[in-house]
């Protein structure tokens, strides 16, 4: 009907106007307001029709305009706006403001604890958990070869034909690329200063395989590969930036090793691809270009490629392994006479993070522990606070406050503190993460991705809140139990209440947790100490190193290479303050040597077992007096002399090889056959200058004369009594004088190389030690407050004891004994935890048993000492008790 239509229309109008009211008023009264207006509207229609109704509409508009905003500005009931929680928030804030020291202490502790936790969480999340920035990254696998049957290399490079075979394998394998990283001399134009860059030589489908588009220009065309390919290069964002970030560079020519290459694209900033290595850390590149050979046609035994494949979405790792293994068997039959060499895949991410995984897991474990300690600490602080407020609780209850309200208020206080602490912790972690990255090894996987984001911030704040709530459970249940009668009874006794037991339990828990964390921290620090004093087999101080590659485009002939290298060595020797100069193809602790198998027929150590008699050896080319300049130990014979006799290739072997082949006899003068080439003659035995780890020998080493191979890329080492850094300008000038086309690379001191090798352990040690000290501090604070409140509580009792004839020392011992009991129980409970933690951190320890008695004993004694000091400080107050005065109170 017409009337109904008008009424419905009116109702819509009233409901629209209702939006002017705040939500809570609408919820409670809105329906009634609309109903009332409906009634009025019905009356209006009945009495005066549409005109009257229009008047009502206008009237309603005025009413809603006045009262809606009015209700917002002056709500009928102020706290209804935020409900009970709002009132609790107001009360909790007010209470905390009244105890600012306590609030600040709690929030400060939480900030530090949760901030540390947030940093570790960020690192673990970004490195171990978050997916990598490629198209379905879980379907990407690196492929390695197990050379087991030939020599001891479980993770070796692939040969070109392996990659070609993977590419055409089909089945679950969607595509594949080979990767080879080379160093090249780069200049933007002929006239600009050359620089040394890393170039990734790869198959043209690399970017499609990863699912990444260049930010500028294009990627490689599928035809741009092989012997006749056009020389094209794609620049990484960082190199492009270094060149001035000019978009016009696409299409222009640059020089790589003196040859013109056309820049066809620039990669996005987020592209941080790393080629994983057979040995050593993954490496990135400054520029990408394609193979100028046909992979299927290169020597199948010359392993020098990393293989990267993509499989069909969702293929199981087992299926991938089977497919790769099948390809491996084809190659094994074709090129290795079925010796049983295998190919196997490893997921991109597991492979990338494998090295840091144990350390990260230990850190994760340590931070989880710290959070536990924090929670216990927070609980005991809140409990102490609840004790102070027991009077208030009891009175509130006697006046009719219900349990729910009391429990809610207590929980709320904990939650509020936790939330604030968590938020501040997340904020602090933003900076702490940056600081940590500054410390971290440059090859830390996914380094660019490691930063606190909103999600992490929210999680940490959430954890803080949950922590606060959990910690408040104990005091809250206690608050609910408190009644006026029990309070009166308690104050009559003036002894410990039920909460005393709870707080003592918390102290025990803290001591136990701290013992576990401190033991882990002590072991890791101890292990790092071992690394610091480990003898790497050379003297790193006072050494400057610089790599000067001599590229064939500028110096095609071997004699020229040798001549330039001799001039460089002479020029370096002439620099004032330099006491010795030599050079090597691979510097210690850089894991960069090439490997080969050798045997010494007829040596006394030959066993007849072919695998054992043909060990895989790191071969390093060096120039004269390298062992002397590096400070290596020559155990027998001599190093290389300055004058070199052509036709007599000399070598030094390390003590590992010497022991294997000459357990009894003298290796000097023995020869090592090399196929068609003149055999090596052993002229000396040295201790290893360690190539991989500071603390332990790696693969056996063989040093040959760099000149015999005309090695083109030598790292020069300069020994000086001055600060090695001071030599840098002279070194640059010397090389420029010899040939301005020569590029310098890796200009750094040997100490820096050693430092880099230890970085990862250093971070772990710093972080874990930090956690452990934090836990120790928390436990000490907990003990302090328990003992302190016990002294206050038992003031009267002590007064009585003193009055009855006990001396102060006796009373002091009484208090200390209580503290000592707690500490002892805590230590005992912590022991199984120490054992468990030991198993967990075994993986990151070097040269220290996870149950090292000296370390563990020191830690336990140290903890006990700190704990007893924390007891003694507040306990001392009993000395000042005046019995007479105390009794009068």
């Amino acid at each position, binding site marked *: 009907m017409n009337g109904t239509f008008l009424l419905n229309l009116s109702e819509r109008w009233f409901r629209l106007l209702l939006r002017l*009211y705040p939500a809570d*008023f609408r919820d*409670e*009264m809105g*329906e*009634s*307001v609309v*109903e*009332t*207006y*409906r*009634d*009025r509207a*019905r009356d209006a229609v009945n009495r005066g029709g549409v005109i009257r109704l229009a008047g009502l509409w206008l*009237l*309603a508009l*005025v*009413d*809603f305009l*006045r*009262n*809606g905003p*009015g*209700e917002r500005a*002056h*709500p*009928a*009931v*102020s*706290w*209804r706006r935020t409900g009970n929680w709002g009132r609790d928030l107001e009360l909790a804030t007010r209470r905390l403001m009244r105890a600012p020291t306590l609030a600040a202490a709690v929030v400060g502790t939480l900030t530090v604890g949760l901030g540390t936790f947030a940093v570790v969480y960020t690192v673990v999340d970004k490195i171990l958990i978050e997916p990598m920035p490629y198209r379905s990254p879980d379907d990407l696998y690196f492929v390695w070869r197990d050379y087991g049957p030939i020599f001891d290399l479980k993770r070796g490079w692939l040969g070109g034909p392996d990659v070609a075979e993977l590419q055409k394998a089909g089945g679950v394998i969607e595509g594949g690329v080979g990767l080879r990283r080379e160093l090249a001399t780069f200049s933007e134009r002929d006239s600009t200063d050359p620089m040394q860059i890393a170039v990734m030589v790869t198959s043209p489908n690399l970017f499609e395989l990863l699912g990444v588009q260049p930010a500028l220009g294009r990627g490689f065309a599928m035809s741009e590969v092989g012997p006749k390919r056009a020389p094209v290069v794609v620049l990484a964002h960082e190199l492009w930036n270094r060149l001035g970030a000019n978009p016009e560079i696409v299409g222009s020519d640059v020089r790589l090793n003196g040859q013109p290459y056309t820049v066809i694209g620039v990669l996005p900033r987020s592209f941080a691809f790393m080629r994983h290595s057979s040995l050593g850390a993954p490496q990135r590149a400054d520029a990408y270009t394609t193979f100028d050979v046909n992979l299927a046609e290169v020597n199948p035994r010359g392993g020098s490629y990393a293989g990267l494949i993509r499989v069909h979405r969702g293929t199981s790792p087992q299926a991938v392994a089977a497919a790769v293994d099948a390809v491996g068997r084809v190659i094994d039959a074709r090129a290795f006479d079925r010796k049983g060499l295998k190919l196997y895949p490893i997921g991109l991410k597991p492979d990338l993070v494998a090295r840091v995984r144990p350390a990260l897991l230990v850190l994760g474990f340590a931070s989880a522990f710290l959070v536990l300690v924090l929670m216990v600490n927070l609980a005991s602080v809140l409990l102490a606070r609840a004790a102070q407020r027991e009077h208030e609780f009891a009175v509130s209850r006697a006046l009719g406050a219900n349990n729910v309200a009391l429990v809610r208020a207590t929980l709320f206080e904990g939650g509020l503190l936790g939330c604030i602490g968590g938020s501040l912790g997340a904020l602090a972690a933003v900076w702490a993460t940056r600081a940590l990255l500054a410390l971290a090894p440059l090859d830390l996987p996914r380094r660019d991705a490691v930063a606190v984001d909103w999600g992490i911030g929210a999680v940490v704040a959430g954890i803080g809140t949950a922590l606060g709530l959990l910690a408040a459970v104990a005091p809250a249940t206690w608050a609910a139990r408190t009644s006026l009668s029990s309070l009166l009874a308690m104050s009559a006794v003036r002894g410990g209440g039920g909460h005393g037991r709870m707080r003592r339990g918390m102290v025990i828990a803290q001591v136990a947790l701290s013992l576990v964390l401190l033991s882990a921290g002590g072991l890791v620090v101890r292990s790092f100490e071992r690394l610091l004093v480990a003898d790497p087999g050379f003297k790193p101080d006072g050494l400057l190193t610089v790599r000067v590659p001599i590229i064939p485009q500028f110096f095609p002939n071997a004699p020229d290479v040798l001549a330039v290298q001799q001039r460089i060595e002479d020029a370096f020797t002439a620099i004032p303050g330099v006491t010795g100069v030599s050079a090597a193809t691979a510097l210690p602790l850089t894991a960069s040597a090439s490997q080969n198998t050798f045997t010494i027929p007829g040596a006394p150590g030959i066993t007849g077992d072919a695998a054992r008699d043909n060990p895989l050896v790191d071969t390093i080319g060096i120039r004269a007096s390298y062992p002397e300049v590096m400070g290596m130990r020559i155990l027998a014979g001599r190093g290389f002399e300055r004058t070199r006799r052509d036709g007599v290739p000399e070598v030094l072997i390390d003590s590992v090889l010497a022991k294997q082949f000459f357990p009894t006899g003298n290796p000097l003068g023995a020869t090592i056959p090399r196929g068609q080439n003149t055999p090596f003659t052993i002229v000396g035995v040295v201790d290893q200058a360690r190539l991989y780890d500071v603390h332990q020998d790696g693969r056996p080493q063989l040093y040959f004369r760099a000149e015999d191979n005309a090695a083109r890329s030598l790292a020069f080492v300069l020994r000086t009594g001055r600060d090695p850094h001071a030599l840098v300008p002279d070194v640059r000038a010397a090389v420029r004088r010899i040939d301005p086309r020569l590029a310098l690379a890796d200009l750094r001191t040997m100490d820096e190389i050693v430092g880099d090798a230890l970085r990862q352990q250093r971070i772990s040690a710093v972080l874990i030690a930090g956690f452990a000290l934090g836990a120790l501090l928390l436990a000490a604070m907990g003990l302090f407050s328990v003992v302190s409140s016990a002294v206050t509580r038992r003031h009267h009792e002590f007064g009585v004891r003193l009055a009855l004839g006990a001396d102060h020392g006796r009373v002091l011992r009484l208090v200390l004994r209580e503290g000592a009991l707690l500490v002892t129980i805590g230590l005992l409970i912590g022991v199984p935890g120490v054992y468990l933690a030991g198993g967990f951190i075994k993986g990151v320890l070097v040269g220290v048993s996870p149950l090292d008695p000296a370390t563990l004993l020191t830690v336990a004694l140290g903890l006990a000492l700190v704990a007893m000091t924390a007891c003694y400080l507040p306990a001392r107050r009993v000395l000042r008790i005046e019995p007479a005065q105390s009794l009068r109170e």
Partner: protein
Amino acid sequence: MGMDKSRGESDFRLSLRAVEFHILLSLAAGERHGYGIILDIQARGETAVPDVGTMYRALARMAENGLIAAAARRPAADAGDERRNYYRITDAGVRAARAEVRRLEALMRAARIGGLLGKAAK
């Protein structure tokens, strides 16, 4: 207004606002729904009948202060038997209304003595 600050001490309030007094007056005679209260006010010949919004804000405030309480929701004969929210007066409300009446009486007496209302009451 300071309504919120007077929570818990409603018995000691000095004066009610006009709309509040009207509401208490209506409810003292029996339970009413919102429009019923407005009709009552109109019937009393009040020149300035309060807005619907003003009245419901007052209802919310008074319910919070315990002067009135919500009664059962039920069909209303004067609204085509649609269901309406009813309100009833509480003891505190009765006390407050009586206090207000006494205050008004005192004012009336004072006005008479002051000659403002003439000597009509003899």
